[in-house]
């Protein structure tokens, strides 16, 4: 019998008891991928050889009686924005087609050490710029709840792989919501840890001061298990926090919010959001009250400017981060006919190698940093960032965690917003403030919107390096919802109509 619908925690237990081997488990997931991924397109690259080698090694260690971690031998899908030695890393861009990095990212090093089996690399918006995974140079990923819809972005491949039972665990990265919004629209769980909580070494930078890798799974506990596996100080990342990792697994298991103050952020709690999103969000608040939490309303007035500031800061940093893709040392090269100079070849390569959204953001960022405009655009945006941080600081004096719906709508149709950048940017309105302040954020499923039957995400935000608080609330809410429904939300996903 296939184990692909089990959680990572359950799989870890089964592996520990010897009820299944990692090789068997890995093969089952590759079989599932072979069955459904032509329809979902969650993966860009599969590494069967490497995955089975790792599975074999974990099985051998277990057979030898070695004590292994809780997710050793469990398969995982890795977002294609993190380097893995010898494995293609494209960032969803034509620019890096065929590039195989000569080094492991910090996250991959930790995963390997934890005995996790990396199945392959998942699809994403090019260089993590987007909210729908439609910006991938390798074609869009489809939402397993409805293949005509987007799986969110930029980490749509990772979330879709979870919802399609192609992997029980996945890694995402979140610059403005790229873990949480895909989790919301695919009915899965995704966490953006505190900035600096997980190494950025080997994470191909989109916006360095906002990027953060994090765990994705189908349950809060699984996310916590993966979180503890990948978090911790990395001396190769100057912005990595050198202090103990919050005890998120214990927090996820605690199932108790008595006496906690939960702050609903007025500015992002539903005004202008889809009706069904608001309904499910408010029901969840009620469940938290029943579990003993106190709901308070808090105001973060400067959040109204977060989106604008984000679309200046992120493109500015991106314009600089993506300058290295110039065809000189790696990646594709276009137009080198022996007559053209280096500069012309760079220009042509970047014309062909980058997609429209990436070019749009590079040009926008170049503008925001250019002399004469710096103060008005980049400079002002960094001041807004200060104001957003202050809003959070004030709000956290009134509440232990803050909450909001994760995304304003459920999954929309593929192609529906691709010609309207501004409409697309609005997807991240509730997730962006978290990145601006560097705090932790989680999205977990809180039901299906009545009007379209699609998943709705509930966002929990916790103060810097207090990631355990959002796990505590998330674990409690998840348990309350499951007991109210009598099942998990993901178990209700319709069977995939494989093409």
């Amino acid at each position, binding site marked *: 019998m296939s184990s692909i619908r089990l959680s990572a925690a359950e799989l870890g237990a089964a592996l520990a008891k010897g009820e299944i081997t990692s090789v068997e488990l890995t093969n089952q997931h590759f079989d599932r991928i072979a069955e459904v991924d032509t329809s979902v397109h969650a993966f860009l690259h599969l590494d069967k050889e490497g995955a089975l080698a790792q599975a074999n090694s974990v099985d051998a260690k277990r057979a030898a009686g070695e004590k292994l971690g809780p997710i050793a031998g469990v398969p995982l899908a890795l977002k294609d924005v993190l380097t893995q030695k010898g494995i293609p890393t494209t960032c969803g861009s034509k620019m890096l087609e065929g590039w195989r990095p000569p080094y492991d990212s910090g996250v991959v090093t930790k995963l390997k050490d934890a005995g996790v089996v990396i199945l392959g690399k998942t699809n994403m918006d090019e260089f993590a710029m987007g909210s729908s995974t439609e910006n991938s140079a390798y074609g869009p990923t489809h939402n397993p709840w409805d293949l005509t819809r987007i799986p969110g972005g930029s980490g749509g491949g990772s979330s879709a792989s979870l919802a399609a039972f192609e992997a029980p665990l996945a890694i995402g990265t979140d610059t403005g919501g790229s873990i949480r919004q895909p989790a919301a629209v695919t009915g899965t769980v995704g966490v953006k840890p505190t900035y600096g909580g997980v190494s950025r070494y080997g994470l191909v930078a989109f916006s360095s001061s906002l990027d953060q890798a994090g765990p994705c799974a189908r349950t809060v506990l699984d996310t916590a298990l993966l979180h503890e596996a990948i978090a911790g100080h990395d001396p190769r990342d100057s912005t990595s926090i050198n202090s103990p990792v919050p005890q998120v697994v214990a927090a996820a298991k605690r199932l108790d919010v008595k006496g906690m103050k939960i702050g609903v952020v007025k500015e992002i709690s539903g005004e202008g959001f889809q009706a069904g999103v608001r309904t499910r969000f408010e029901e969840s608040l009620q469940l938290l009250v029943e579990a003993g939490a106190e709901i308070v309303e808090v105001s973060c007035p400067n959040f109204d400017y977060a989106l604008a500031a984000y679309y200046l800061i992120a493109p500015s940093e991106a314009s600089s981060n993506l*300058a290295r893709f110039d065809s000189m040392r790696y990646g594709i090269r276009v137009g080198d006919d022996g007559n053209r100079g280096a500069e012309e070849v760079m220009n042509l390569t970047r014309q062909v190698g980058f997609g429209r959204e990436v070019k749009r953001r590079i040009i926008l960022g170049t503008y925001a940093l250019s002399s004469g405009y710096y103060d008005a655009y980049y400079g002002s945006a960094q001041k807004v960032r200060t104001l957003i941080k202050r809003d959070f600081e004030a709000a956290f004096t009134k509440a232990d965690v803050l909450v909001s719906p994760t995304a304003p709508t459920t999954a929309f149709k593929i192609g529906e917003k691709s010609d309207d950048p501004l409409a697309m940017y609005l997807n991240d309105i509730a997730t962006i403030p978290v990145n601006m302040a560097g705090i932790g954020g989680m999205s977990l499923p809180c039901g299906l919107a009545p009007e379209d039957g699609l998943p709705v995400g509930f966002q929990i935000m916790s103060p810097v390096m207090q990631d355990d608080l959002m796990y505590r609330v998330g674990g409690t809410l998840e348990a309350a919802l499951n007991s109210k429904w009598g099942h998990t939300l993901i178990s209700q996903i319709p069977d995939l109509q494989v093409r």
Partner: protein
Amino acid sequence: MGSHFDLADPRFAGALVALNFAQAMEKYEPTLGLEVHVELNTNSKMFCSCATEFGGSPNTQTCPVCLGLPGALPVVNAKAIESTILIGLALNCSIAPYSRFARKNYFYPDMPKNFQTSQYDEPICVNGYLDVEIDTDEGPAKFRIEIERVHMEEDTGKSLHVGGSTGRIHGAEYSLLDYNRAGIPLVEIVTKIVPGTGKYAPQVARAYVTELRDILRSLGVSDVKMEQGSLRCDANVSLAPMGSGKLGTRSETKNVNSLRSVERALFGEIERQANRLESGERVVQETRHFLEDTGLTRPGRSKEQAEDYRYFPEPDLVPVTPDAKWIEELRTKLPEKPSTRRKRLQTEWNVPDKEMTALINAELLDVVEETIALGAEPTRARTWWLGEISRLANEKEVEPTSLISSANLAEIIALIASGELTDKLARQVVEGVINGEGSPADVIAKRGLKVVSDDSALMVAIEAAIAAQPDTAERIRGGNIPAAGALIGAVMKATGGAADAAKVRELLLKHLGQA
């Protein structure tokens, strides 16, 4: 002073050179600005752990960080920060309690990330000065060069241009890149504008770079080898009509890679600008490249349309906030200032000005000091290093200090002082040591180089000399003491230099009844 323009150069065909340097300096006032880039001698690079050693085979001292591979991140080298603070302190700068790295964005294939991690509006050291002394028509004069900033950045890779004309960039068919140098820590030291040097501008610039080099060397933070590029100087200069109180348009001359070139480049550039102004043309704000062979500069990239570097704070690095305690700790490590030390040593050793200058120019101060510290008598130590050892080094085309250790030389000098070696014998000992025949004692033993101090052996030689030149002996007997030189010379020759000349003289005169 003649013109620095070679009128035979076809590039100047038809050009009328109206003013030479001296004439130019009667009509125009130069203003200097100097930017010096120093490669620090840390073991590892600025932002990664690759080795910095010079001369490794291409692309073997690179890693994801210094190759700018996607995903790689920088981490600051603590030693580089310490070295920079030391430099700042030695240049009388304030050390900023808060400083940051920034990205300087521009595309160039030798720069892996297409931005240079540098410092911009928040450098680590600001507002210092350095005093230099030069010889003027009125004697020695002091100039204070004010330092605007000292900041940290990283070096670029090296490109090799293949095909086309003689390795120059233009006309190359393709270029080859080696990133071993990429990411080596660089410190940039920028002066404020330096007015008021008048016709001494080239000498002041040279004295500044020299003094700076000596300070950096005394701090031990850099190899300061201009010819290897570990110290590079960009010289800015502008001219304004005498007494106008204005600033002219400046040019920036790069590729100046020796102390002498700093001076030559400025002579040439001042003359060039003066002649442009004189003929009613404008000086273009541009980068110029110094041509070692002609002493002229050629134009590089025009800066009329300023580059837009889009500086912004480097998000991958956190601010540097040295606390007062750290700075004071570093201050205690500051060595004696080179200028103070030179004065002290000159007094201690009692050296005439001219010889002191020779020692400094030959870069022998350190080794002479070391030799004296090992017990050698100061005058002999100086004379040996500056004389015999330098002569041999010159012959072999190596550095004097690579020939013999100060300990060995100190030992030889001690033997001379005690009369166990004559100068002539000592030269043979030095030769033996350089040839690898062992320590001075080994050479003396193997070659049998001992002063003949046995009186009876010397008397045999003296009597032989008297017998060979009876007339000379007679004159000495008659009171003509200076005539003794000829007999002493004969004795020295007979003993193969192994006799102590003073002893020979004493015995000879006594023997001839003159003592």
